[in-house]
């Protein structure tokens, strides 16, 4: 254990700004966090599966005791079980799973599939300001620009205020479209089922790979196992992220159809795409355990109840003048503030109340997301939503009066 202040050490050697008051986490179960100063927090930041689930923890520990990473010189039973589970979890014809080390890598794998499908196409389309992971192409989509002079797929974006305009941009110059079912700042119903069907049709018409980014929305987050169930379409590639590894074992998955996969990889050396660590037994065991827990614990239903709680306790929050929008799609809960400054103020006030949320999101930095883990105890969710309301009332109302 470091003898110095952990926060100071991490700030010294990291890149970017880390809040000097960031909590130092020493214990986590569900949404509950203990910190080095002995205080108790709620985690509304991770937006993942959650720590301390008995069955998942036991499964990971058991696999770690036998084989974690693997030389892959023998057959992997955990991998076979994981891809069977993913096949059962995803809609047909999404039957082929590529397991890698992060949601960002999984998204990148879909982009690579798109580029291999159409080597002559050099553009990928997304909604500006949303999160597309930390790899170079994903960052380019988030910001609409990249410091790398030329990328295999250059990002093209539509404004977050007009996500529906994505449809107009789909043509045969694109290799892929990447879009999440919903995102902090964009409610699920912002894009109608008709719009999604039109997007599906247009991608099919122009042979553009439709990549549905469910890193945040699945499993279970929106109240369905997969949010694609709510959209009424099946994408060409579906991306799942860190929640599948219980936020503990790094993993991401791209699931696609055999037909889409074969267009690039059939009859080719299997090393054409892959990763040293990808598809390792420990991550495969984690995926199996998490998917089993999603079903056994009814986590999609739990997110619907989380939505009920959020609506009951926060539903009228938009009547506070400085909150311009409130959304609860299952366990994807967020508020839009009138300004980025107010979003930062709310985030800081929530931290004082021992609720950890991510730094403000969206292209304008005006969205505060409330993202407890999927396994958060329902009573804890009630508390979180109640504290958010109290803090918002106090901070935002006081600021309004002051203004």
């Amino acid at each position: 254990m470091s003898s110095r202040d952990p926060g100071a050490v991490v700030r010294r050697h990291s890149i970017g700004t880390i809040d000097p008051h960031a909590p130092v986490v020493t214990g986590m179960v569900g949404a509950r966090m203990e910190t080095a100063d002995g205080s108790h927090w709620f985690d509304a930041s991770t937006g993942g599966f959650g720590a301390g689930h008995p069955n998942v923890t036991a499964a990971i520990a058991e696999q770690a005791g036998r084989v974690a990473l693997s030389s892959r010189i023998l057959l992997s039973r955990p991998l076979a079980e994981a891809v069977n589970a993913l096949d059962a979890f995803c809609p047909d014809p999404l039957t082929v799973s590529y397991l890698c080390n992060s949601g960002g890598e999984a998204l990148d794998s879909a982009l690579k599939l798109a580029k291999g499908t159409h080597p002559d196409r050099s553009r990928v389309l997304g909604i500006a300001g949303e999160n597309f992971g930390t790899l170079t192409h994903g960052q380019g989509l988030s910001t609409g620009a990249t410091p790398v002079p030329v990328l295999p797929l250059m990002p093209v974006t539509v404004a977050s205020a007009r996500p529906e305009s994505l449809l107009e941009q789909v043509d045969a110059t694109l290799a892929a479209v990447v879009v999440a079912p919903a995102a902090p700042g964009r409610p699920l119903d912002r894009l109608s089922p008709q719009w999604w069907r039109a997007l599906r049709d247009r991608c099919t018409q122009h042979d553009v790979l439709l990549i549905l980014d469910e890193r945040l929305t699945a499993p279970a987050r929106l109240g369905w196992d997969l949010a694609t169930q709510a959209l009424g379409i099946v994408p060409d590639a579906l991306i799942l992220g860190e929640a599948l590894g219980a936020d503990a074992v790094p993993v991401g998955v791209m699931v696609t159809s055999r037909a889409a996969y074969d267009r690039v990889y059939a009859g080719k050396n299997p090393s054409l795409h892959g990763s040293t660590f990808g598809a390792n037994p420990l991550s495969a065991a984690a995926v199996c355990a998490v998917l089993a827990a999603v079903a056994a614990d009814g986590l999609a239903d739990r997110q619907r109840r989380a939505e009920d709680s959020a609506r009951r306790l926060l539903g009228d929050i938009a009547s506070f003048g400085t909150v311009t929008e409130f959304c609860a799609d299952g366990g994807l809960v967020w508020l839009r503030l009138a300004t980025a400054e107010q979003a930062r103020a709310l985030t800081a006030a929530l931290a004082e109340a021992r609720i950890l949320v991510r730094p403000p999101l969206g292209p304008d930095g005006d969205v505060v997301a409330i993202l407890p883990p999927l396994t958060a105890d329902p009573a804890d969710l009630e508390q979180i939503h109640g504290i958010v309301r109290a803090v918002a009332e106090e901070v935002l109302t006081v600021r309004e009066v002051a203004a």
Partner: protein
Amino acid sequence: MNAVPQAVLQQRQDVLDSLGRHWNPTAALMLAAASRPVEQSASGTEVISEEGDRFLDLAGSYGVFLVGHGNPQVRDAVLDTLCTAPTVPPGAVHPATAELFELLTTILPAGLDRFVLGCSGAEISETALRAVHLARPDRRRILIAEGGYHGKTLGALTVLGQPNHREPFEPLGSELITVPYGDAAAVREALADRSVAAVFLEPVLGGAHLTVPPEGYIEEVAAACRATGTLFVADEIQTCLGRTGKMFAVEHDDVVPDILLFSKALTGGFIPVGVCALSSEVVAQAERHPLWHPSLLAGSSSISALSVSAATAAIREVIAKNLPHRAATLGPRLTEGLAEVARRHPKHLLGAPGVGVMAGLRTRNPSVELLISMVMARHGIHTGHSLNEQIDHPVLRFYPPLTITAEEIDRVLAALEATMTWLDRRPRRLTDGITKLIRRQYQLPPWLVLKLSHSKMRVDW
């Protein structure tokens, strides 16, 4: 070898069917052809099947298992973190990260004191790519070595020196200069006009091209970079933490790069993790770019407290057991032994490149590599096959865990001698013919691949 019971064969078939239908159909076909058993556990230098058969692992996932399979110290650290605080929530700090960062400052060359964490070599290669373009905004070109490998994500493909992995996705748009590995003059010439942002280079060229460079090569490259304001990115993803006999391979030439990438052995064999270590000067230059935002050099969203705990425990093991020294002292038993085998069997072997415990056999053609790996597997020894049948002289790799004993190395060399004696009785034209066949193996009907491999498995996916 005893016949495998039908029930066991059926269990393997069930696993293969799942992998073929729902994971990677071609990889599953290759596994079916190799008639491999199912992995049950791994410990030290051994991998153990569900039937209890034990295999010496000289493949080592190309450097991952430096501290051995199932290292108890790393496992305990991982399980302890799993049961306390396995996650690093956005906006929070985890003490395990601080512990790792403090430890990194004690092992890295002085000056490399800013760290970005990733979950794969490819992720941190992409981080480095963004960093060098941020820090050198007026320079569009990147220099790499022929055969160089820095990952296969779509961004990392742009700096990949292996054409067979790039071509299906080209054009990639990057402005690359590719020079022969080991040729310092070619690097100097390419950098002279100051249009190159960075050199991405492995201090020991890995993969199927395993090559130990001429003495002083890395120092000459670093000097050329300094003279032209070009950034030097040392890719130590395979060579880190002692495999070559030094903590980092750049130390053989006493070089401090601007950016150093390392992973594989850092995982301790447990949890994916990699580090992109940068100098503060490079970071300061990057921060002056008009597009600068800290998120451009953000770590992977997938990094967990398990990743950093595993890395810390792995480094502590490397230090406690002085593994760089062990690689330097035990390594020659392997490298010189392989060189002796290569001298005795020139019909099929061209040499035995190696340093520390990063060693290999340069083969006459891809079928020689395949045949040696298959026969060695029958001896219960798994080697690092390159899966690269397109190049002329692939290197079959021997990257053992440093839990390997001198006696086990002797066993490997004895099995290799027997294998080569067997192979020497086969004419070169046979291996030439097999090479032509395996260069088409992925287009052959699966039943023919299985028949040629004498496999009892089925392929119906």
